[in-house]
C-alpha cells in the first residue's frame, strides 16, 4: 500500500463510504420492489394452487367411482376355530352323563334297577357330569365354527368371478385414469401459463427500474473495486476507520483497520458475555423458584404429618377409653352373676 497523506486517504475513504452507502440504498430499493411484486403475486399463486387442488379433487372423485370393487370373499372374514383338537373321550363323557341322568330320573319315578346298576348310576352321573362340564366347550366351539363356516359358504355359494369381466374393469379404470392424468397435465399447463402472464404483468412496470438498479449496483461495485483501499470483508468498518484517522487514534490505514477490527471484536465479545450473564441469571432465578416450591411442599407435608399424628393419637385415646369402659361393664356383669 502506498503511503499517502492522511487527508487524501480520508477523502478517498469518504468517497468509498459514499459509494457503499449508495450501493446499499440501491440494493434495498431493489429488494423492496421485489417484495412488493411477490406480495401482489401471492394472491394469484394461492388462487392457482386452489384451482389445481379443486380440479384434482373433482376428477379424482369421478375416477374413484370407477375403482373396481373388492370381492367380499377377500374381505368377509373366514370363520376360524379356537379349538385345535376335539377328543372323542369328551363326547363319551357327554353320552355317559346323559345316560346316567336318564336312569337316575327313572329311578326317582319308582323304576327299580339291579343292585349293581344302582351303585353305578349316582357316581357315574357325578363323575361324568363334572367331566362333561369341563370338556363340553371344545365340542361346542367346533360345532359353532362348523355352523359359521357353512353359513359363510352358503352366503357366497353363488359368487363367481369372471376373469374377463375383471380384466375389463381394470383396463377400463386404467384408461380413464390415464385420460384424467392427461387432462390434469393440460389444465396445469394452462394455469401455469396464466400465472406466468400475471407474473410478467406485475413485474412489467418495474422492469426498467430493476434494470437501472442492477446497472447502478454493478457500477457501484466496480467503483468500490477501483478505489480499493479496504477489502470487501471490512467495508462495514469504514466509518470507524475514518473516525480513527480523523481523531488521530491511528496513524495509517493499516493501524486504523486493525483497531477497528479489535474494537468490533470487543463489542461482539461483550454482547456475547452479556447474553451469557443473562442466561445464567435466568437459570439461577429458576433454581431459586424451584427451591422455594420444594420448601413449600416440604412444609405442607410436615404440617400434614403432624395433623395425621394428632388425629391418630386422639383415635387411640378414644379407643383406650372405650376399652376401659367395656372392661368395667364386663366386671360388673361377672360380679352380678357371681352374686346370683
Amino acid at each position, binding site marked *: 500500500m502506498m503511503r499517502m497523506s492522511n487527508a487524501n486517504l480520508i477523502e478517498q475513504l469518504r468517497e468509498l463510504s459514499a459509494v457503499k452507502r449508495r450501493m446499499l440504498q440501491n440494493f434495498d430499493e431493489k429488494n423492496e420492489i421485489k417484495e412488493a411484486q411477490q406480495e401482489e403475486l401471492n394472491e394469484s399463486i394461492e388462487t392457482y394452487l386452489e384451482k389445481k*387442488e379443486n380440479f*384434482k*379433487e373433482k*376428477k*379424482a*372423485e369421478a*375416477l*374413484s367411482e370407477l*375403482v*373396481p370393487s*373388492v*370381492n367380499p*370373499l*377377500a*374381505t368377509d*372374514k*373366514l370363520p*376360524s376355530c379356537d*379349538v*385345535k*383338537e*376335539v*377328543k*372323542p373321550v*369328551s*363326547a*363319551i363323557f*357327554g*353320552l355317559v352323563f*346323559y345316560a346316567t341322568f336318564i336312569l337316575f330320573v327313572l329311578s326317582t319315578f319308582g323304576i327299580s334297577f339291579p343292585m349293581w346298576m344302582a351303585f353305578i348310576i349316582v357316581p357315574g352321573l357325578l363323575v361324568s357330569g363334572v367331566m*362333561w*362340564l369341563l370338556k*363340553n*366347550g371344545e*365340542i*361346542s366351539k*367346533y*360345532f*359353532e365354527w362348523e355352523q359359521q363356516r357353512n353359513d359363510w*359358504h352358503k352366503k*357366497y*355359494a353363488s*359368487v*363367481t*368371478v369372471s*376373469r374377463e369381466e*375383471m*380384466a375389463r374393469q*381394470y*383396463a377400463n379404470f*386404467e384408461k380413464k*385414469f*390415464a*385420460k*384424467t*392424468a*392427461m387432462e*390434469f*397435465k393440460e389444465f*396445469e399447463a394452462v394455469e401455469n401459463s396464466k400465472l406466468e402472464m400475471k407474473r410478467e404483468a406485475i413485474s412489467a412496470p418495474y422492469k426498467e427500474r430493476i434494470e437501472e438498479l442492477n446497472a447502478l449496483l454493478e457500477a457501484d461495485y466496480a467503483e468500490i473495486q477501483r478505489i480499493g483501499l479496504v477489502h470487501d470483508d471490512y467495508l462495514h468498518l469504514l466509518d470507524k476507520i475514518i473516525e480513527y484517522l480523523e481523531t488521530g487514534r491511528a496513524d495509517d490505514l493499516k493501524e486504523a483497520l486493525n483497531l477497528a477490527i479489535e474494537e468490533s471484536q470487543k463489542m461482539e465479545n461483550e454482547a456475547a458475555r452479556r447474553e451469557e450473564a443473562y442466561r445464567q441469571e435466568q437459570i439461577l432465578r429458576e433454581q431459586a423458584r424451584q427451591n422455594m416450591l420444594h420448601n413449600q411442599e416440604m412444609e405442607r407435608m410436615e404440617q400434614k404429618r403432624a395433623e395425621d399424628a394428632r388425629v391418630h393419637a386422639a383415635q387411640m385415646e378414644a379407643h383406650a377409653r372405650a376399652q376401659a369402659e367395656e372392661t368395667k361393664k364386663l366386671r360388673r356383669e361377672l360380679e352380678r352373676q357371681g352374686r346370683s
Partner: protein
Amino acid sequence: MGFIMSPLKLLQVISTSAEINRKLDGKGLKWYLSKEGGESHAKAKTLPQKVEYFYGLLRSFNSDVGIADAKFLQSMAYVIAATVDGTSKPYGVWPAIVDPEQNPLVGFAKEHRSADISTVMKMSKEHDIDYMELTYDVEQLTVARALAALRGSDDYEMFMYTTPGAYENLTSEEEDPELFLIERCIIFTLGDSGYYDSDNGVGPYNFGLSEDDENE
C-alpha cells in the same frame, strides 16, 4: 349349545373325530403337497372353496396370526384363487401353486407380516402422523412388495410411486393378460382401506395425478 347338546352330535363326534381333527388341525405344507392335498385342491370347485383351500395353506405357515395378518392372508388367498389358479402360468397348477418355492405369491405370503392395528396406532402417535394415512402407507408398502415378489424381485420401490397415468412399471394387458390380471387384483384387493386423498389422486393405489404427488 354347550352343556346341553344333542346326543346325535356326540355320536357324530365319536364316529368322525379323525375327520374333524383333520379339519381343525392346521395342515402343513407337506399335506398340501401330498396326494391328499392334491385331491383336496381338485375337489375345490367353487370360488369360496378355493379361497378356503388357499387360506388354509397360507395359515399353515403361521397358525398364530393377528387380525391384520389374517385379513392379508385371506386377501392373498382370494387373489390366488381368482386369478392364479388354473392359469397357464407354471405356478398356476397343483402342486406348484401351493409350493412357496414355485408360487411367488405363496412365498411372499409365507414371509410377510402386516403391521397390526396397535402397532400402527403406536407409530401414528410417536411420529405424529394421521392414523388413516399411515394405514394407507402400510397398505401401499404391502402392495408394492407383493408386486415385486410376483416378479421375483426385491425392488418394491419401483411400484411405490409411478408417473401419472403411465402404469409403466406394471405389465400391460397386451404383453401378458394373465399377469396383468394378477397384478391389478393384488392392487385392488390388498389396497382397499378406503382411504381417499385428493393428493394421491385416487384410492386404493398410489398413482398420483401429477408428478408433485410422486414425492408426497
